[in-house]
């Protein structure tokens, strides 16, 4: 007993001493160069050609480079390619590569690596293979020049080289890229401890401008409240912010809030094969019965932009279709009666559990629809189930989900082609020809007109009800600068710096 007592006392004393110990505060005269950032979702490996997970690309964009990059204002900028020439017919693109680029393993990057990488991106194991099947020939002109030839004219060809999955990798490191990535990017991977953290280290041989940060430590904190706690005590320099947390940091002079509309749309997809939903009037009545402002308030705490069609307001081709069908519950009831459903009906709604914003939105919508007599049975399903049941098997009545991250409008809208076999499509085929024209139209203004027409058709026909473009938000300590939000799901740490 005595011994036990001693042990306990010793233990308590140890804890107390450790608790009272002051953390060593380094006498910092220099500017900080080590950034810590919180993140919530583990990357699915660090091989850019073998996953479709946004959590992977957010990180890998700093390790690998693409031929061209995209700026926060959607402009395409040179990256590995110094310049490029598109042939007059638009079917060929020739890139001139930089001659001062080295992989992290010290080997110089040449056009053979670009060829290898795109073949790897197009092979059977690559989730993005379909996006690049239009590229039918890759020709090495010399060590620093490479030409891509397409089968069909695609006016958005250049954009497809800016996505983070179109990264250039060295063949010799191919088999272990998932855990030991080797790229040409501004940072190298120092350490990835699953479930804990991922540390990036400045690439001393980087070809671009001097990088300000020495290390970037990404710390995995799955719980948003714990994340905020870590930010408020100063352990974290940058954290992703959820709508309900904005009030905790906004107006505080120690923090900054970065908030931009995402390049994404949140939609309520409708199965037009359903006996009720096949009726256009029913779909319009539903759209009229949904108060999108309420949906945005409930799912994003107001941090979202209302949309009326399938393009986000940030897109260069965006047309404001919000007033085509406006919120009007009385008229919605009339329209439903006109369609022959005076007493309403019942439909199912599958909501993906992992995405709280879609679940929240779906619940508000269910309530709003019940007011015009449409009963909605909510089923909250796991993402895996959602993908195989709703997306794959098209076994659903309605769902709320987001579509995200594309730089060209065609990629956003092509799922509505009547022959797309997508889970939502406009089977009546009104926009098939328009899409066909859009992708072949070299004149930018004419192209915009076509996309406008498509957006108007979608806003009227409503194969889905268009809800909002949610915002991406970050909270930053006041001494962090240079962090930007891009139209694709990436982080770019090479421009980030600390202010004195």
């Amino acid at each position: 007993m005595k011994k036990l007592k001693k042990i306990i006392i010793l233990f308590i004393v140890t804890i107390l001493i450790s608790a009272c110990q002051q953390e060593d505060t380094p006498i910092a005269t220099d500017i900080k160069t080590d950034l810590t950032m919180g993140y919530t979702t583990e990357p699915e490996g660090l091989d850019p050609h073998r996953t479709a997970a946004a959590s992977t690309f957010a990180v890998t964009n700093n390790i690998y480079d693409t031929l061209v990059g995209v700026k926060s204002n959607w402009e395409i900028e040179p990256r590995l390619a110094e310049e490029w020439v598109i042939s007059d017919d638009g079917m060929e693109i020739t890139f001139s590569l930089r001659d001062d680029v080295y992989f992290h393993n010290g080997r110089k990057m040449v056009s053979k690596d670009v060829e290898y990488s795109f073949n790897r991106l197009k092979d059977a194991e690559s989730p993005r293979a379909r996006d690049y099947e239009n590229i039918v020939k890759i020709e090495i002109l010399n060590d620093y020049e490479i030409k891509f030839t397409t089968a069909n004219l695609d006016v958005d060809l250049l954009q497809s080289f800016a996505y983070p999955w179109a990264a250039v990798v060295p063949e010799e490191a191919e088999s272990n890229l998932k855990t030991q990535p080797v790229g040409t990017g501004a940072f190298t991977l120092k350490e990835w401890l699953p479930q804990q953290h991922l540390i990036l280290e400045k690439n001393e041989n980087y070809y671009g401008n001097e990088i300000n940060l020495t290390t970037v430590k990404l710390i995995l904190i799955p719980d948003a409240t714990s994340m905020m706690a870590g930010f408020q005590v100063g352990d974290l320099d940058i954290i992703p912010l959820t709508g309900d947390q904005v009030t905790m940091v906004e107006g505080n002079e120690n923090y900054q809030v970065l908030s931009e509309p995402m390049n994404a749309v949140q939609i309520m997809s409708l199965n037009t094969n359903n006996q009720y939903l096949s009726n256009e009037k029913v779909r319009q009545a539903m759209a009229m019965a949904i108060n999108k402002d309420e949906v945005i308030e409930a799912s994003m705490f107001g941090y979202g932009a209302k949309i009326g069609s399938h393009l986000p307001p940030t897109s260069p081709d965006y047309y404001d279709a919000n007033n085509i069908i406006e919120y009007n519950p009385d008229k919605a009831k009339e329209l439903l009666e006109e369609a022959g459903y005076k007493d309403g009906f019942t439909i199912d709604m599958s909501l993906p559990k992992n995405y709280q914003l879609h679940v929240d939105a779906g619940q508000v919508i269910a309530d709003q629809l019940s007011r015009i007599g449409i009963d909605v049975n909510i089923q909250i399903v796991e993402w895996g189930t959602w993908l195989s049941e709703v997306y794959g098997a098209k076994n659903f009545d309605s769902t709320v989900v987001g579509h995200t991250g594309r730089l060209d409008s065609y990629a956003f809208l092509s799922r509505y082609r009547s022959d797309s076999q997508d889970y939502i499509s406009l089977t009546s085929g009104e926009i098939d020809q328009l899409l066909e024209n859009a992708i072949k139209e070299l004149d930018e203004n004419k192209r915009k007109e076509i996309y406008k027409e498509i957006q108007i058709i979608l806003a009227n026909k409503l194969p889905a009800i268009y809800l909002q473009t949610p915002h991406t938000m970050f909270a930053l300590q006041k001494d962090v600068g240079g962090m930007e939000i891009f139209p694709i799901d990436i982080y770019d740490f090479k421009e980030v710096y600390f202010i004195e």
Partner: protein
Amino acid sequence: MLTYVLSRIKSSIVVLFVVSVITFFVLMIIPGNPAQLILGTDATAEMVADLTESMGLNKPLYQQYLGWLLDLLKLDMGTSYVYGEEVTRLIIRSIPVTISISIFAMAIAVFIAFIFGTIAAIKKNSIIDYFSRSIMQLGVAIPSFWIGMVFIVYFGMKLRIFPVSGYVPINENFLNSLKSIILPSVVLAIGELGTLLRIVRSSMLDSLKQDYMDMAKVKGLSAGKIYIKYALRGALTAPLTIIGMQFAKLAGGTVVVETIFALPGLGRLVLTAVEHRDIILLQGLVMFITASVIFITLIVDILIMFINPRIKSFQQGEL
């Protein structure tokens, strides 16, 4: 004695085998095709079919099972899809976290439960008894995510004596490592305390009513000796079984606490595997956790046999 242990080990192996069959087939038939999940919302049906084939998911189930079982016997659980690392390595890395908070939490819970439970039983209906009965209620009623948050806000943010989240390995810095597991352990301890306290109190009450207690009193032994040597020893069986079960539960991962405190333990690994449909990782984890639970139960049973003379003699009588 040895025969008993051997027969227990034999039955454990049978249980493990049955679990392996169930685990494999249940995970295979749950909705959600891993190939579809990897490819996401841009995939065509063709691409899903191709990847399903290259992942070997289109082979007959029994063939897949046999292949998996053979690898398992060689302690090869395959490579995780999400991490691209061997499942065994991932599990080995998570064990220290989960085990250390489990042991720590159980130590706290056992310590408090035995002190208060014993006193509460001896001094029935006293203030201490009422106090410990309130603890029982609270321990069961307070959700761990809530108390976890309160601790983070108070001890982490306000007093700043503990880190708000994260885990420091023990070989990196002992003090910081201790600090990083104290809050989660206390939260877990609170959750387990209620049940344990109730069991200790009721077994102790039961034990106090036994004839040998009167005997001891008549013999004129000191109160301390009576309560600790006679009453408490007789009252150990039930709490020990519960402690074993609770420890096994904690060792199998504590998803909520690990999530709140961002600890890289087994529970979180299970959650990640489920969310990403990393079937290979999930199968490995389920097998590992089942094996640990079976092992812990086995140890507890053997321990009880040593502590409680009645069971030992019963077993020996049977031989």
